[in-house]
């Protein structure tokens, strides 16, 4: 049964991943990437990682929709009404990627993989949670700080209006001068 599920979802993930770079329409490219992620999320669920697979599906749907908004904003020809191929060094990168795949495949088949050590626990999600709250607490803290730093850095990079634009030169203007008033009035 695992083989059947793998042969359905695996080629789907790889094919839609490849189609990302073949579509002329940016919307279709993003949805192709979303299909690829949904397939790998499904594979993770099938491998027994129910929580992580579902979280991958959840996150990737949201991420791809936001990415679609950005793609359409930044790329010309977003609807693919004209054929488009924006590559540089197409043959070189194809050669490099095929070489990398061949190398990885050789390693996969040549490596002496060890035997399975143990069986999955009864509650896989609890295993993850207990590990992140216990022995892997350092990882959890680093992830949290990284995400917070990313949030701050992204907003700083992307915003083009700062405190002085909103509150005036003496930071005393209330309510702030925004193009759109928010619901709370801050």
């Amino acid at each position, binding site marked *: 049964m695992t083989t059947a599920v793998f042969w359905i979802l695996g080629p789907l*993930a790889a094919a839609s991943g490849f189609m990302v*770079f073949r579509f002329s329409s940016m919307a279709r490219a993003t949805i192709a990437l979303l299909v690829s992620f949904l397939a790998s999320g499904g*594979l*993770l669920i099938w*491998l027994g*990682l129910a929580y992580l697979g579902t979280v991958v599906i959840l996150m990737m749907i949201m991420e791809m929709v936001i990415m679609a908004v950005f793609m359409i904003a930044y790329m010309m020809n977003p609807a693919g009404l004209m054929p488009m191929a924006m590559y540089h060094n197409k043959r070189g*990168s194809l050669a490099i990627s095929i070489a990398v795949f061949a190398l990885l495949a050789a390693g996969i088949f040549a490596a002496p993989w060890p035997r399975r050590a143990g069986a999955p626990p009864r509650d896989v999600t609890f295993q993850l949670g207990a590990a*992140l709250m216990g022995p892997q607490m350092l990882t959890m803290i680093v992830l949290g700080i990284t*995400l917070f730093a990313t949030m701050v850095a992204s907003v700083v990079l*992307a915003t083009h209006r700062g405190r002085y634009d909103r509150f005036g030169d003496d930071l005393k203007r209330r309510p702030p001068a925004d193009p759109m008033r928010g619901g709370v009035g801050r």
Partner: protein
Amino acid sequence: MLQLFLLLAAALFAIGLYGALSQQSIVMIMMGLELMLNGVTVAAGAFWHYLAPASAAGQVILVVVVVAMAVEMAAGFAVTTAIFRARDVDMTDMAADLKR
């Protein structure tokens, strides 16, 4: 079976690498990076299931990879927005400031 999953992961990684190397637009390069990390996610899940299911380390690696994906996308779009605002372009060829 582990090798099949790892082959899929390698295929996704290679396709993503092709995209990341050959595309001109920053957002398309980011999609290539996302595909590469997708491959790593599948590989991490396969490693956990087929080699060490009793240990949580495989799952923690998966969490780290997924967080890396989110961070990369957020930072990438913020940088693209900043470059677009500064120069009105979104191609890497025109953002090659460090090239001499």
